[in-house]
C-alpha cells in the first residue's frame, strides 16, 4: 500500500508542479523607467520567451528597429516614440497582467500584441474595458470575428491562409478528394475544422481527418490510415517540428500525393528539419517571402525593400513574416498618432480609417466591418524546390 500511496502522491505532485511551472514561467519582465514628457509611449506585449518566442523575438526586433528609425528622423509631431515591450512568456495569464501594467502604470496610448492567438484573446477584455486600441500580431480567425471596435491585426488570418490553400487545391491541383492531418492543438484543430466546413463549397471532399500531438515522433500510423482513403492530396495543418516529421514519414512510406502545409511552416526551420523531404511541399505565405511577386515599383515593394535592408543592417538576418507583423503594427499605430496625437480614443478612430496603407505584409485597409486589413491577395502559394522557395503555379 505504501507504494500506491507514494506513487499516487508522486503523480499528483508531478501534475501540480507541471501546472505551477507553466503558470510561473517568467512573469516578471524588465519594466522600463517612465519616460518624460514629449514622448509617445506605445505598449507592446509579445511572446519573447517560451514556445512562441520564434514569433515574439522578431516582432520585438522590428519594433526596436522602428523606434530607432523614427526617432532618428526626429520622432512624430516633434515627440519621441517609445515602445514599452513586455514579455508574456507565451502565457495568456501573463499577457493579461502585462497589458494591465502597460495601461494603468505606463499609461500607453495604444498596445501591440500579442504574438499568439491565446495570449491575444486573453488581453481583449482589458483593451475593451479601458478603451485602448490593440493591434495584434496573431492570426487566429476569432480575434477579429466578430469585429471588436478596439481590436485590429496585421498578419493574414488563418482563414485567409486556408482559403488560399482551398483555391490552390481546386484551381491549380484540380483535386476533389483530400485528407487532412493536423496538430491536436488549437491552431491545428481550428484549421482542420474550418477546412472540413469550407471544402464542399470548393467541390472538395475531406476523405480522412487525422491528428497528431505536437511532440509526436512518428506519424506513419496516421499516414497509412490516410493512404487507405485514397486522397489526391494531403493538407497538413501544424507548426514545426510535426510537419517535418510528416514529410519524412511520407517519404519513408513512399507516398507521392502532394503535401500542402499551413503558413506555420513558412520558415527556413522547416527546410532544415525536413531536409530533402521538404522538396515539393507547398504552403501559403506572405508575398514578402518572395518579394519578386509584389508588383514592382509599388509602395508595398518599396516598403519591403526598405525594411529588409534596415533589418539586415541592424540584426544581420533576413526579414521574416513575424518581423513584418510587428513592424506593420507599429507603423499603423504611429500613422494614426500623426493625425490623432496623444488621444487614445482618436487613435482608435484613426486606425480604423487606415486605407491603402503599404506595409510589409501587404496593403492594409481597415473598415468598421473589417479589422483584418489584408486580403487573400496578399498571400501566395509557395513551393519548396531544392531547398528554395519559389511561387507555386
Amino acid at each position, binding site marked *: 500500500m505504501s507504494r500506491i500511496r*507514494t506513487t499516487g502522491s*508522486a503523480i499528483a505532485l508531478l501534475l501540480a508542479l507541471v501546472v505551477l511551472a507553466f503558470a510561473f514561467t517568467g512573469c516578471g519582465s524588465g519594466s522600463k523607467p517612465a519616460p518624460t514628457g514629449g514622448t509617445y509611449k506605445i505598449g507592446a506585449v509579445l511572446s519573447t520567451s517560451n514556445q512562441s518566442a520564434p514569433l515574439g523575438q522578431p516582432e520585438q526586433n522590428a519594433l526596436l528597429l522602428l523606434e530607432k528609425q523614427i526617432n532618428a528622423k526626429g520622432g512624430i509631431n516633434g515627440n519621441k516614440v517609445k515602445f514599452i515591450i513586455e514579455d508574456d512568456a507565451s502565457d495568456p495569464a501573463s499577457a493579461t497582467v502585462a497589458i494591465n501594467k502597460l495601461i494603468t502604470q505606463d499609461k500607453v496610448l495604444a498596445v501591440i500584441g500579442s504574438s499568439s492567438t491565446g495570449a491575444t484573446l486573453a488581453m481583449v477584455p482589458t483593451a475593451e474595458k479601458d478603451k485602448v486600441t490593440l493591434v495584434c500580431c496573431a492570426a487566429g480567425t476569432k480575434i477579429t470575428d466578430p469585429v471588436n471596435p478596439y481590436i485590429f491585426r496585421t498578419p493574414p488570418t488563418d482563414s485567409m491562409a486556408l482559403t488560399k490553400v482551398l483555391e490552390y487545391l481546386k484551381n491549380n491541383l484540380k483535386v476533389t478528394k483530400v485528407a487532412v492531418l493536423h496538430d491536436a492543438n488549437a491552431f491545428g484543430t481550428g484549421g482542420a475544422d474550418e477546412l472540413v466546413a469550407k471544402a464542399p463549397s470548393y467541390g472538395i471532399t475531406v476523405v480522412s481527418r487525422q491528428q497528431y500531438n505536437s511532440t*509526436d515522433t512518428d506519424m506513419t500510423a496516421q499516414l497509412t490510415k490516410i493512404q487507405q482513403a485514397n486522397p489526391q492530396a494531403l493538407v497538413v495543418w501544424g507548426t514545426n517540428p510535426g510537419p517535418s516529421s510528416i514529410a519524412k514519414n511520407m517519404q519513408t512510406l513512399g507516398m507521392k500525393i502532394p503535401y500542402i502545409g499551413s503558413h506555420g511552416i513558412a520558415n527556413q526551420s522547416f527546410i532544415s528539419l525536413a531536409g530533402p523531404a521538404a522538396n515539393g511541399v507547398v504552403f501559403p505565405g506572405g508575398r514578402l517571402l518572395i518579394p519578386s511577386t509584389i508588383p514592382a515599383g509599388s509602395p508595398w515593394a518599396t516598403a519591403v525593400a526598405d525594411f529588409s535592408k534596415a533589418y539586415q543592417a541592424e540584426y544581420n538576418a533576413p526579414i521574416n513574416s513575424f518581423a513584418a507583423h510587428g513592424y506593420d503594427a507599429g507603423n499603423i499605430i504611429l500613422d494614426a498618432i500623426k493625425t490623432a496625437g496623444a488621444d487614445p480614443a482618436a487613435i482608435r478612430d484613426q486606425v480604423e480609417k487606415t486605407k491603402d496603407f503599404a506595409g510589409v505584409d501587404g496593403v492594409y485597409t481597415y473598415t468598421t466591418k473589417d479589422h483584418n486589413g489584408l486580403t487573400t491577395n496578399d498571400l501566395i502559394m509557395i513551393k519548396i524546390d531544392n531547398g528554395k522557395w519559389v511561387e507555386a503555379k
Partner: protein
Amino acid sequence: MQGDSRQKVILAATAVFVVAVLAVTLILKGSIGMQWILSGIVVGSIYTLVAMGFSIIYSSTRAINLAQGEFTMVGGMLMYTFTVQAKLPLWVGFLLAVLIVMILGAVFERAAIHPLKNPNMITIIIITIGFSIALRAAAKWIWGSNPVPARAFTGLAKSGKEIPVKIFGASLSPQSLWIVGLAALAVILVFIFFNKTMLGKGMRAAAENRDAASLVGVSYSTTSLIAWTMAAGLGAAAGAVIGPIQAAVFDVGTMLGLKGFAAAILGGLGSTQGAVAGGLILGILESVVAGGFSSGYKDALAFLILILVLLIRPEGLLGKPEAVKV
C-alpha cells in the same frame, strides 16, 4: 503467495491481450498492420530507453528522477552541436554527447541529491522537477526555441534522401533500426550489469537496505552516484539517436519523460524487463490505436494505462510488490 498467483493471472491476461491485439491487427490489416506494429516498436524502444533511466535510479536508490526526459533532450541538443554544427564524426559526437550528459548527471547527484541528510522520495522528486525546469531554460538559452535538425546515421542516398528499409511490406527509416538496436543493446548491458556483476547486485542490495549493504561494503553514496550517471547516459543516448526522427527542442523532454514514466510504471518501476515490456506495449498500442481507431485517443492511452495500473496493480506488470513495513 496470493500476490504471486495474482501476478501470474495479470501477466497471462496482459500477454493474451497483447498477442490478441497483434494477431487481430495483422489478420485484418496485413502489411498496413505490420506498419503500425513496427512503427510502434520503434516508438516503444524510445519509451523503453527513457523508462530504463527511471528504473535504474529507482531500483538503486528508491528515488524518481523527473528530469529524465530532459537528459534525453540535452543528449539530442549536444548531438546536434557536435555533428551538425561542429561537423565531428557521428560516433565521436555520440560519445561526447553521452559523456557530457553523464558528467551532468553525476555533478547533479553530488551537488543536489548526495548532500540530502534525509533523502525521501518527495524531496528528491521536487529537486528533480526544479532541475528539469533549469535544464529546459538553459537549453532554450543555449540552443534557442526552434527545433534543431540532426543527421541520420546511415541509409542516405547521394541526394540526401533517406532510403527506406522494407520489412514484411512495411517501410521504416534506417534511423529506426538504429533506435531499436541501441535500445536492445542498452537493455542487455543494463540487465547484465544488475544481475551478473558484483557492483550491480550490490547496488540493488543497497536500495533494499542501505545499512545492511554498507556493512558488507556496498556504499549507498557510490550506488547513488553510479545510478544517476548511468541513467543520464542512457537518456542522452536515446536523445542522440532519435534526433533524425524527432528534432530536439528545449521542451521535447517533458512529454518523452511522461511517456517513459508511464511505460516504467506499466512494466514495473525498477525492473529492466518491465521497462522493455512497458515501453513496447505502450508504443505498439499507441500506434495501433492511432492507425486503427482515432489518432485523437492516442495520447490519452498512455495516461489511461497509467491510471489503470496504479489502481489494479501499482507495482506494475513485472515489478515486485513492496513488503509493507510495520
